[in-house]
């Protein structure tokens, strides 16, 4: 574990990305996207969670979330928050049309300077993991041959040559935005200092056009 960066924000960001990794694992498991045997039971923050066993899957989730760390920490000047606004886990049908999005709306107060107890944040984040395990009724079943991906929405495009390498790890997404306002189902929210996280589901509006071209 990299303990080099342990300013309050750095610590919060580290906890957050770690949490996101676990949460994404849980979401993918929850959706039943892969057979249950592809996951193994683990303990995180004293909650039983599921972790992908397949090295490639685990690596994708890990690299996607851990590479968010610099951007979560990076200050977006206008609002004194981290650069990352949302992290989506999007599920598609085979036409690559989104069917369901798990949205983590993140707000890290970067100007918050006092010491953050990891256990405090952990306590709040644990509620997410618990709620996620029972969120199945709120989700919709996936059609066959669907897909999924992790998308991060930044408040501004990463700039500066020093961080270019990190920014290059992310590619612009071609994920379609909703055409109609989606249906939102909140799953869990936490609003503490310095971290605010909200997790909700987005489903397409019933009047959302099924296919764009047609």
């Amino acid at each position, binding site marked *: *574990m990299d*303990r*080099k960066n*342990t*300013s309050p924000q750095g610590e919060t960001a580290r906890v957050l990305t770690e949490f996101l990794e676990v949460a994404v694992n849980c979401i993918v498991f929850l959706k039943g996207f892969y057979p249950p045997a592809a996951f193994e039971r683990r*303990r995180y923050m*004293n909650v039983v969670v599921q972790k992908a066993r397949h090295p490639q899957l685990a690596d994708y989730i890990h690299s996607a979330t851990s590479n968010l760390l610099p951007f979560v920490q990076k200050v977006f000047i206008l609002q004194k928050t981290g650069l990352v606004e949302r992290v989506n886990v999007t599920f598609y049908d085979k036409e690559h049309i989104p069917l369901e999005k798990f*949205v983590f*709306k993140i*707000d890290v107060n970067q100007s918050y300077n*006092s*010491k953050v107890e990891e256990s405090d944040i952990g306590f709040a984040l644990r509620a997410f993991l618990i709620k996620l395990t029972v969120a199945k*009724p*709120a989700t919709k079943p996936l059609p066959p041959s669907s897909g999924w991906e992790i998308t991060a929405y930044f408040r501004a495009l990463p700039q500066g040559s020093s961080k270019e390498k990190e920014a290059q790890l992310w590619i612009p997404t071609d994920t379609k935005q*909703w055409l109609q*306002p*989606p*249906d*939102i*189902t*909140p*799953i*869990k*929210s*936490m*609003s503490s200092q310095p971290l*605010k996280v*909200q997790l*909700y589901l*987005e*489903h397409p*509006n019933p009047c959302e056009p099924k296919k764009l071209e047609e």
Partner: protein
Amino acid sequence: MGSKSSDRPSTSVSSFASAAASGGSLKRSRNRTPQNPLRSTTKRKSPFADFGSYMAEKNRKLGAQFRADAASVSSLGADGAPVDSEEDKGVFRGVSIFVDGFTIPSSQELRGYMLRHGGRFENYFSRDTVTHIICSNLPNSKMRNLRAFSHGLPVVRPEWVLHSLAANRLLSWAPYQLVHGACKQQKLSTYFHHQRISTSSDAKGSINHDEAIKVGQNHSVVPTDGQTSECGGISIQVGDVACLKSEEFSQARDANQEPSASNMVHSTLTDPNFVENYFKNSRLHFIGTWRNRYRQRFSKLLTGVKSSNENLKCHSTKQKTAIIHIDMDCFFVSVIIRNFPDLVHKPVAVCHSDNPRGTAEISSANYVARNFGVKAGIFVRDAKVCCPNLVILPYDFEAYQEVAEQFYNILHKHCSKVQALSCDEAFLDVTECDVDPEDIALAIRKEIAETTRCTASAGIAENLLLARLATRSAKPNGQRFLPSEKEGLQKDFGEKIGDMLWNYCRGIDNRNVGEVQEAKSIGAEVNWGIRFNDMTDCNHFLINLCKEVSLRLQGCGVQGRTVTLKVKKRKHGAAEPLKFMGCGDCQNMSRSNTVPIAIDNEAALLRIAKKILSSFHIDVKEVRGIGLHLTKLESAKITRKGRENIAVWLSSPMHATRSKCKQISQSDRQCDNGDFSFSSGAPESGDLDSSHKLDQDKPTLLFQDAGSNCSSIKGADCVRPIRSSALPPLQDLDIDVVRNLPTEIILEMDVLYKGELSDLISKSKGNNCLTHVCSSTVSLIDASTNSADTGISDAHIDSVKLGLDSKDKGKMPICENVESISYVDQVTMEPKLFDLMPASLSQADASVLEQMPEDVKADVHGLLPLHRELKVSKDFYTCFDFPSCVQFPDPHLKTHLWSGDPPWWVEKFNTSKNILLNVISRHAKSSKDIRLSSILQSVAPFLLPVCELSNEVYAEAICWLHELLAQYIVLKIGSDIEEIYNCFCFLKRISPSSKILLLVYNSALPLFQALVNENYGGKLRLSVIQTTDE
């Protein structure tokens, strides 16, 4: 020299001569050997027939090569000039060395020295040719049998060769003897022992030189030799001097009583200011006295720290300690070379003298030099051998003093707890500091680098030892954080297991011997006589096996969560075993299944066992053994208790509640008899006991508690199912269970049951007299209730729409369908008596109260607020339109409702004249949780259609509630959408039964959706939880 070595008589050489005669016939002799089986007889004639002769030939050849090399070197001379004098021919005349193992310098270099200086170098050891064995390290076994290994020859360190060369004469090898333990770690006790040797026997004087210095710092050495008596006086006073003396002294001895003048320059013999000069140049003295200077300089700070240390001692145990060990990088060198920037990348060492003999000790070397192998404590001449370009610089004690002061100034500035170890090294305890230890270390190092132009390294860990070790790996100019391994383990494996692992890998185990180890697994296995013909046999066996395991589990009083089934399957082709009906050669298979709740009953075991067995997909005829085991055991007491609650919930066994049933047994009996036509009149008190006895013999009852108003409910129930089809009949609820539910759930259920539930609960709690009285007077709910009930929601929606349209005008005229609410007067008022005490007394039938016994009446009055009078109103609800004069709260108050703690509205509602608002406020005050969703849940029962209040009151309440909700939405939309969602889900669920909340819900929803759209770009879906209801 060549002649000298050639005429040395040697048996091996003479045998070479004969071998040399046939030296050129290698090929031939090889070819010949197979033809001649009698090799031993021809050994002499064919030299390579065996190993010995080959080696002899090789040695001869090597010797010849060496001589040839030596001849060519010596003819030129070391500097190209011809060598003529016999004396110059070689320092190592007559010396023949054998190098054993790794040495510095290498054996090839040593060979070179020997070549040039008249010695001999043997590649292979032979007692006859070798005179000295050179080695730096010897394995322990050789050390122990040194005599056997060396054959009595001297075993010396390579330094002997170097030093002899430096002195240009053959030194006595004795001081360079490789002594057992000389290069090993010393025990403390041996210091004293060696000290004697070093001063009394010149043979070991310089070998133990290092130790002597160490000893000398602490103990004064009293030399026993007459020759050292001059310095004895000094050495008694100052230890440092003694070592110096002993060093110089042994040097003098080594020189065979030929002390050169340079040797004596600094000695007490010649230098009158010896002591003064000595201290001026002593680094150890600088370090030794530095502490005093430091004390003087920082005395204030130190005392301050000490006192604060005492105070903080108790705190530090709780907090995780953080220690920084900070150490300047090669302090003595870097302080000097900061003024010589060109030296930064060159090997530099600091030494008190740089005389050509190189006998001074290096005190500190920079990292460039260290890479060459230069270390503190080695002689300059050795260092120069390692690193010819080494720059030697003198001390600058003033600079050291200055830098050390700056160093400690910086440390004290950053941290109040500083423990000085040396002038360039200290421990800081930064536990109390709020800042991250690594940041502190970074800041300190940066400041040190800026102020002193020297670098420092830091190690951060939880204790002194680890911090110091961390520094070592951080050097040069780095810092290293050693995270607590224990914490890491605890994070990965949980607190207990992490702790255990951490302890175990250090050999710590605090478990006690003694207590009976609880069984980890319980089960039964049968491996003999298992022969099944078909599945029925197998199942039959499994049943019996499960029965056995179940009995064993119950016998131990435990239950298990993991069921493991082991099956022995006959190996393919295995014959019938010798042992009659034995299992024979089997393949073992085992699978387990974990269930969420611990089990011990036969049926569950059987079910799981069958499932596992079928998963093996084996032919039952092949099965030779079956075992069933349970693990993850839990005590049955705990689990059974938990399960009983569920069992109560499901089947309502009565023994638990029987004790409480005295008060209601009367009604029980009647219910059992199917007599629901409850006759008026209180039962005789004497009847209670008998009926109680009766009850005990009876089978389980489902609704004993319902007694008092069962008749009324029954009446209502038969016509109610339109709305409450999803709800179980009230009678089916077990009050004991319901009562144990969380309050919010009770309240919510109560709303669904229109308050009857809480009535039941309160009744079951006691006051049977009252119950009976009440029940006798309860009237049946009019059938019209249901029509009104179902019709109400439609009416609501219409009216709300109206209300919303006109909302912006600040008025809320709502015309209500009068008919739809007219049922309310016929709702029994008694059920509301207990849970809706403040608002519902007015509903009490005065005639009922009139007929109550005096004491009961007094009770009822005591329970109710005095200021409110009973009134019976039949036409109270006939009209439900809000007066148009009701105003919304002041617009300028809008933003303030939720400010403050508790929120401002709590007080506002409390002081309001509106009863409903008072109720809400009271609930908000009593609950710690000021989240609106929980407040709404707790007050919802009061907002049911209890409509004795005036329309103005309603209108006002609705306006305020709307405002409250709206502001809450605005407050929370950005941060806690879940909470608002909860509020709305609850409102939506409850709205069919509460008009107020419906109105509030409908009025606030558009605002909410608009804000959600604005903040989250979507529309909230509120139907998730409702789907089952609709």
